[in-house]
């Protein structure tokens, strides 16, 4: 929303402040000013001049020499403007003055300084200006020529301030209006706030009665069939329309609000929409069949051509304005091609209605047509405002001589909303705010906002335009706004103290981050949604559960259309970015959710499973990654019982270099080398290692309790064994056998050699472990250890292992 200060001042005549003061004060009472533009910021020493005499330039075909009367004297100016003529009155920038930009419409920050000088050898003491050079355009000054000097017309006063005459001594403010303040989407609404903010009088001029002796009710009938969607329908009529440009003052105000002047009728409609916040529509009366208006719902699949020439397909939820035979307007959104005002219009019907906001919003969305009008209606307008607005429009019609207003108004307003009454509760307001504002002050603030206090029953009467004031807290906010948010004290909550802490899940995650970072991995973050093509890149088969992903109904394109069911694609994408940028030895981790639907289509919320994933290329291998995984399990108190199962065969991992991570019989994650084909699909020319730990299980079982177990007092005994087994036997299986039979006395079991070669025979490998035994309470005897070793060897024999001599 943009408004010119001059327009605000027409309702708050005593308003006297700088643009910056206005900005700051309005923002602090809740009408946020986003910025302002002084229209005359770069304009200086520009007066109305009159061209008295034009001579040819002796050395340039395209230049002429003008003698220009600037009031107190006559000066000589050389110009190349094609439209200059003797007698023309035009803005003249004098020596030492400034203009805003070039005649091509380009702006120069700080303006362009105009100096006396010679043009092709002829003295020139200033510059005659086009509208573009004054920082504006033909959009807002439609009478300006396509190229050339701005003609100020014969009534302009020679020597007077041209900027004043052009209405450019003004400031245009841009506001951010919050959605609850429908009333502030209007000049009047903002002016009322300005008056309250600066404690000045708000002067709403009386609208003069308009209309001839006829009565519009005799000429048109209105039938509102869909009363639930149209709270009020007002209509007035104008005969003998004389289309013409609107006066300059109206054009200037519209221009400042960013609206292009067109003609008096259109401009009046727009002017009143800005001023009152009430959209209106004008129909050509002669096109209205039966001189009858029917407000009804559209039929399903009804096709209607809006005045922009587009056919729109409607449905039965949408509200139409119809005549005796056909639809003539899409209510609150856009009128119809068939009833629009043309240059030949004689009589028109003005409509000011109050449609249901939610319905307009949904309809505008459905037909894909959001107009200035629908943007206002959808916020839910005040039905009492419609009457004021339509009368204001008719007043302007008469004032501008745009036509003959017919007397009376058609008004269908079956249910008049009652005045809202709220109790006046100063103590409650103060208690909520933590303030000590007096009742008198509160009532003063309310008075400025036209909220009336009724002393007899201690109530507040809420004006109809303030639809946002419904209960105690709303009134407390009004007090806060005008008492000043900055004056409210600064305290800290009292009451029962609470212990601050992270949830256990977040604590486990912070350990994961610590371990990952300690091991050289940096934290990455990827989007939660991705492309379904990711599954193909990851070689995931068509029938895989991974492809059962949640789809977003309205995604930002295919690439962001499904919620991820695995974290690998994100990780590989990030690694690929790094690889592509020639970053070496990259290690990344991520802690983020995957979204596993319980059923598709989704009927209940999916299982959001946090995954701790690690990915790397460059230095390091499978076992580096395995080390990180084990470090993490130790830090969350889950070490000691992890095993690795290579049998699952995930399609995106190297078939011989992958393992599920099993804790206590439960699969809690996996790790492996990424399949070379997958790396190729992501354009990564290096081996990539990846680990994925499913955090919900970890969080459930993690334990940060520690107990000191004492430092062993008795010596250890070490036994080294060397065995020959089939190559396929996993070291993990052998270790499990040793640990199982080693019992409590086996302190550690460490692989120290592994060898394949001729000496042990084809298909075999030699494996050597170092076993350390210790008891807590005694020195172990050789016999004791011998017995355990026998059991271990017996178990290993079951795996086909033979002790090497």
């Amino acid at each position: 929303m943009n408004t010119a200060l001059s327009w605000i001042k027409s309702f708050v005549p005593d308003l006297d402040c700088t643009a910056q003061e206005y900005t700051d004060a309005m923002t602090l009472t809740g009408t946020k000013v986003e910025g302002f533009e002084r229209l005359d910021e770069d304009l200086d020493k520009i007066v109305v001049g009159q061209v008295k005499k034009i001579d040819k330039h002796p050395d340039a075909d395209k230049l002429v020499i003008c003698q220009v009367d600037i009031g107190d004297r006559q000066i000589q100016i050389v110009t190349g403007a094609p439209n200059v003529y003797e007698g023309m009155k035009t803005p003249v920038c004098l020596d030492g003055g400034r203009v805003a930009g070039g005649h091509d419409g380009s702006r120069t920050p700080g303006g362009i300084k105009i100096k006396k000088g010679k043009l092709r050898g002829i003295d020139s003491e200033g510059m005659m200006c086009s509208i573009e050079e004054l920082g504006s355009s033909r959009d807002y000054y439609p009478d300006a020529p396509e190229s050339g000097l701005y003609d100020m017309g014969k009534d302009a006063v020679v020597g007077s301030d041209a900027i004043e005459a052009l209405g450019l001594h003004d400031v245009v403010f841009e506001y951010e209006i919050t959605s609850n303040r429908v009333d502030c989407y209007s000049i009047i609404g903002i002016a009322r706030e300005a008056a309250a903010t600066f404690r000045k009088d708000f002067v709403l001029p009386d609208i003069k009665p308009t209309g001839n002796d006829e009565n519009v009710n005799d000429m048109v009938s209105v039938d509102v069939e869909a009363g639930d969607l149209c709270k009020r329908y007002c209509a007035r009529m104008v005969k003998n329309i004389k289309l013409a440009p609107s006066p300059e003052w109206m054009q200037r105000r519209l221009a400042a609000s960013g609206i292009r002047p067109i003609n008096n009728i259109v401009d009046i409609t727009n002017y009143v929409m800005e001023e009152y916040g009430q959209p209106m529509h004008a129909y050509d009366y002669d096109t209205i069949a039966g001189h009858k208006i029917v407000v009804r719902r559209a039929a399903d699949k009804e096709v209607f051509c809006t005045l922009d020439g587009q056919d729109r397909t409607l449905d039965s939820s949408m509200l139409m304005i119809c005549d005796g035979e056909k639809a003539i307007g899409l209510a609150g959104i856009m009128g119809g091609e068939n009833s629009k005002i043309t240059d030949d219009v004689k009589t028109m019907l003005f409509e000011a209605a109050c449609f249901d906001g939610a319905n307009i919003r949904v309809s505008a969305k459905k037909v894909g047509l959001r107009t200035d009008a629908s943007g206002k209606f959808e916020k839910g307008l005040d039905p009492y405002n419609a009457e004021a607005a339509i009368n204001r429009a008719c007043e302007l019609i008469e004032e501008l001589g745009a036509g003959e207003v017919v007397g009376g108004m058609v008004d269908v307003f079956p249910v008049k909303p009652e005045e809202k009454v709220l109790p006046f509760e100063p103590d409650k307001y103060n208690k909520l705010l933590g303030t000590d504002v007096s009742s008198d002050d509160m009532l003063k603030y309310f008075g400025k906002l036209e909220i009336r206090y009724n002393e007899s029953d201690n109530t507040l009467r809420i004006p109809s335009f303030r639809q946002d004031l419904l209960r105690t807290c709303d009134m407390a906010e009004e007090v806060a706004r005008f008492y000043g948010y900055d004056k409210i004290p600064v305290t800290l909550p009292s009451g029962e103290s609470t212990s601050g802490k992270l949830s256990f899940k977040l604590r486990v995650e912070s350990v994961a981050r610590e371990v990952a970072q300690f091991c050289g991995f940096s934290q990455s973050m990827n989007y939660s949604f991705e492309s379904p093509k990711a599954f193909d890149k990851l070689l995931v088969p068509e029938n895989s559960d991974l492809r059962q992903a949640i789809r977003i109904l309205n995604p930002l394109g295919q690439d962001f259309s499904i919620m991820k069911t695995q974290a690998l694609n994100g990780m590989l994408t990030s690694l690929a970015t790094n690889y592509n940028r020639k970053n070496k030895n990259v290690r990344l981790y991520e802690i983020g959710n995957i979204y596993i639907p319980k059923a598709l289509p989704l009927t209940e919320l999916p299982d959001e499973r946090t995954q701790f994933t690690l990915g790397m290329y460059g230095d390091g291998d499978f076992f580096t990654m395995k080390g990180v995984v084990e470090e993490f399990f130790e830090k969350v108190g889950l070490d000691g019982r992890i095993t690795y199962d290579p049998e699952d065969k995930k399609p995106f991992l190297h078939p011989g270099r992958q393992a599920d991570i099993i804790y206590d019989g439960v699969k809690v994650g996996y790790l492996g080398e990424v399949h070379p084909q997958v790396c190729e699909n992501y354009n990564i020319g290096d081996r990539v290692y990846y680990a994925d730990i499913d955090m919900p299980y970890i969080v459930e079982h993690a334990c940060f309790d520690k107990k000191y177990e004492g430092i062993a007092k008795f010596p250890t005994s070490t036994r080294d064994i060397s065995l020959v087994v089939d190559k396929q036997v996993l070291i993990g299986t052998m270790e499990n056998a040793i640990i199982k039979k080693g019992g409590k006395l086996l302190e550690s079991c460490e692989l120290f050699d592994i060898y394949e070669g001729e000496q042990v025979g084809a298909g075999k490998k030699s494996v050597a472990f170092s076993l350390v035994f210790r008891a807590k309470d005694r020195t172990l005897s050789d016999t004791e250890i011998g017995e355990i070793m026998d059991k271990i060897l017996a178990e290993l024999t079951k795996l086909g292992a033979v002790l090497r001599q």
Partner: protein
Amino acid sequence: MKEKLQAIREKAIEKIKSCDNLDKLNEIRVAYLGKKGELTEVLKGMKDVAAEERPKVGAMVNDTRTAIEEKLEEIKNNLANAAREAKLKKEVIDVTLPAKRNIVGHSHPNTVALEEVERIFVGMGYEVVEGPEVEYDYYNFEALNIPANHPAKDEQDTFYINSNIVLRTQTSSTQVHEMEKGRIPIRMIAPGRVFRSDEVDATHSPSFHQVEGLVIDKNITFSDLKGTLAVFAKELFGEQTKVKFRPHHFPFTEPSAEMDVSCFKCGGKGCRFCKDSGWIEILGCGMVHPHVLEMSGIDPEEYTGFAFGIGLERIALLKYEIDDMRLLYENDIRFLNQF
């Protein structure tokens, strides 16, 4: 005898003094004090000494031995010290050579910022909790006073899974979950991912993070909200930080406000960072709307509360002067390594 011992002593000491290494020193020790050493030989000759002279001669021999031993020890120490000195001299290194550092990973800037925020609020007794990212429409909108067809629903450009389930547009949904638990007082912050259908550019991302805050108790006031957030701003941006509260509108709070902090780059004088205003918008906040309390089963006559929502990326971008939001989701290690 006396002369003989004196001669041995002088000769030995002379030799010891001129000795320049430990091996030779040992040879000297053996030559005088060893089993077959000169002094030992003298002792062996004691049997020839008259009985009454023996104690005297014995004492003289011992004196001589002690003198030689002392000298030996002295020179041995000197030689050892010299050797150590020489070794240390040889071991001089250029301390300006590059360090050998462990390669340690880095936190994402969002996490760095979040940890700061968490530290501040945990210190004030807030619990850090989470809520679902895929959320029922009820929790994301309706329970927050945004009923069906409310304009605010459009403002937030929601991603829908179906008519009933959305990707949450705000962490405010966590407020409702927390209130429904029925445990009061509540002091919580809820960090998390939120989603809005904004195209990716330098200042927008369809996925970003917020930190929601909620306090519910008896007698909570707007002044408490101001005080709490002023503490937060000073902790996060420095002791000299000033805060400004501007009226605003959110459906789930009333009164509502936006909080600006004095620009921490220029201190409020105005710079490119704060677009010459001296202030930077940081968060939205307000007193929890009584209807929101009612919907979650809390009696607004008995309890009041405040809530606030902080954009984590906004804090990270401002605090670390990151000029393009896309950097946060590219995961280039040259970027991440700076945090």
